[in-house]
């Protein structure tokens, strides 16, 4: 097991380094080649201290990252487990009910919600909050100074909800597609002819054999969730890692851009690493080499 973990860790680090280099090239290309800026990304002078627009109090870059990650954490805690839980359980159910197009039916409420622009939805919540509850609507309008800070979780839930809906819709269909493809394989017909019951065939054979693929599909879902959080946080004025990226891009602060993009890449690397290690550990004998 240690060998597998170390092997995947090495691959993961190489990928992360490649992503970092790609980001540096992208920033240089966008700001200097097309944008015509004189500040090159490799020069230390281009970074400097944290701009006051990015933090109300004087902090170092590490402190800024820590602050923003701490704020984004409740969103991730609500969003990612929700997507995985709903996506896998409903996707499994959808594949089980494939005769009735179960996956489409189960994913349809989420797909419908995914058609709503997320930045508009969070704005609507803010407007509703202002007119009906008589309190400032956006996340940066009110700070709880005493008592339990339920407002933080409310704000995190508003940001997480659109991302969760889109991610869950995709995850349900992806899980269901993988399982539906698996159940069309010829060996399952053989099991059916041999007298296995349908539940045995589905859960003990098709599902178990599809597990590595099921783990692999969550990487792209989490990547798209991270992308949607970038605009949702900014739209709801939620001071997380996503809004740090947009604010830094608007200010032309390379430090903020690199910090936020690399933090997202590191989180995704970790998620992919966990998925890959799990795949290696649970892969049934003789499947996929």
């Amino acid at each position, binding site marked *: 097991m240690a060998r597998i973990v170390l092997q995947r860790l090495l691959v993961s680090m190489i*990928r*992360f380094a*490649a*992503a970092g280099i*790609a*980001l540096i090239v*992208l*920033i240089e*290309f*966008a*700001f200097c080649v*097309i*944008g015509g*800026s004189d500040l090159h990304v490799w020069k230390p002078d281009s970074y400097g201290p944290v701009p006051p627009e990015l933090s109300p109090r004087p902090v170092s870059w590490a402190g800024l990252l820590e602050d923003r990650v701490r704020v984004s954490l409740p969103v991730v805690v609500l969003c990612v487990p929700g997507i995985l839980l709903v996506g896998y359980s409903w996707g499994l159910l959808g594949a089980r009910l494939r005769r009735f197009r179960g996956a489409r039916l189960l994913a349809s409420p989420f*797909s*419908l919600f995914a*058609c*709503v*622009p*997320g*930045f*508009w*939805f969070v*704005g*609507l919540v*803010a*407007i509703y909050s*202002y*007119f009906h509850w008589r309190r400032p*609507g956006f996340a940066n309008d009110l700070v709880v100074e005493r008592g339990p800070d339920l407002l933080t979780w409310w704000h995190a839930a508003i940001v997480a909800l659109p991302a969760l809906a889109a991610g869950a819709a*995709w995850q349900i*269909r*992806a899980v269901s*597609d993988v399982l539906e493809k698996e159940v069309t394989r010829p060996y399952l017909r053989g099991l059916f002819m041999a007298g296995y019951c349908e539940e045995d065939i589905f859960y003990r054979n098709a599902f178990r054999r599809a597990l590595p693929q099921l783990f692999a599909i969550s*990487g*792209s*879902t989490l*990547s*798209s969730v*991270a*992308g*949607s959080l*970038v*605009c949702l946080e*900014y*739209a709801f004025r939620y001071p997380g890692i996503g809004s740090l*990226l*947009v604010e830094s*891009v*608007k200010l*032309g602060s390379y430090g903020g*851009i690199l910090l936020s*993009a690399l933090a*997202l*890449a590191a989180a*995704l*690397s970790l998620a*992919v690493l966990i998925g890959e290690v799990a795949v290696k550990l649970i892969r049934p004998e003789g499947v996929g080499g």
Partner: protein
Amino acid sequence: MNRRNSRILRGLARFFVRLWQMRRVLLLVVPYLLLLGWLFVGGGRMDVRPAELYGIPEEPAWESPDAEHWFGTTGNGADLFELSRLAMATSVSVAVVSVSFGIALALLLSMLFVFDPGERRFKLVRIVGQTGFLVPSMVVLVILTGGTGGSLGVAILGLILVIAFHLCPVLADWFQEGESGFDVVAGYVLGLSRREIVMNRILPKILRRLVGVFAGYVPVVVLVEMTLSFLGLTGDRLSCGAMIAYGQGLIIEAPWMSIYPGLMATFVVFVLALLGWRVSAALRTGPLPRLF
């Protein structure tokens, strides 16, 4: 005389039979034409700038939604429904151009590897694809458009690159799937060259599925374009995203200015998504990669 009548009748009957045979295609094409026709009527006024529209004059002439102006009016009295419609036409145009070129680029890139007879010819494409997930496409687009000061041209370029990047591994899979078909194996046995097999046997099947890819991606790209314009990264162009962003500055005075453009955007994206799903299902495109 009778013979001529019967010929006309026969022609009419044949026409209706043909229409009946094409009913599934028409059921998809007609709503597309209706939607696009409705969006693009009056497209001559598409050079409207949202900054001018949402500026507050000394004596604002805005009106809340009523029977005459369904979505209300802006500060200078412009009808918000018409503006939202034009804004969605811009977004759909951007999406159509980006997805078309993105698919074409992805096809070109994957064709670079297809003619190689090696077993592991798509390995590079897959490795790059796996690494690409670590940098979300929205992050790439925000950096690319923000670094250049925000312009629609750069946004379209970014969208094309992102679509091509994510579609290449899918096309590689499709090419490999196509090569395992019985007709292809039979072609090899008969002595056809690799080029003949790829061009005449595999590529036509993939091109057919690309129509479904196009229909599936257009609503997604419409949403992304609106998001970028909401962030102010596509220049001062009319888009529902920009209208919502400007409208948020007037939440207290005129809340409808940020509410109703979003309704229009949701409606158009929903219709496009529904049609895209049907087209994709009809052509058996299969699951598409998440772009953003």
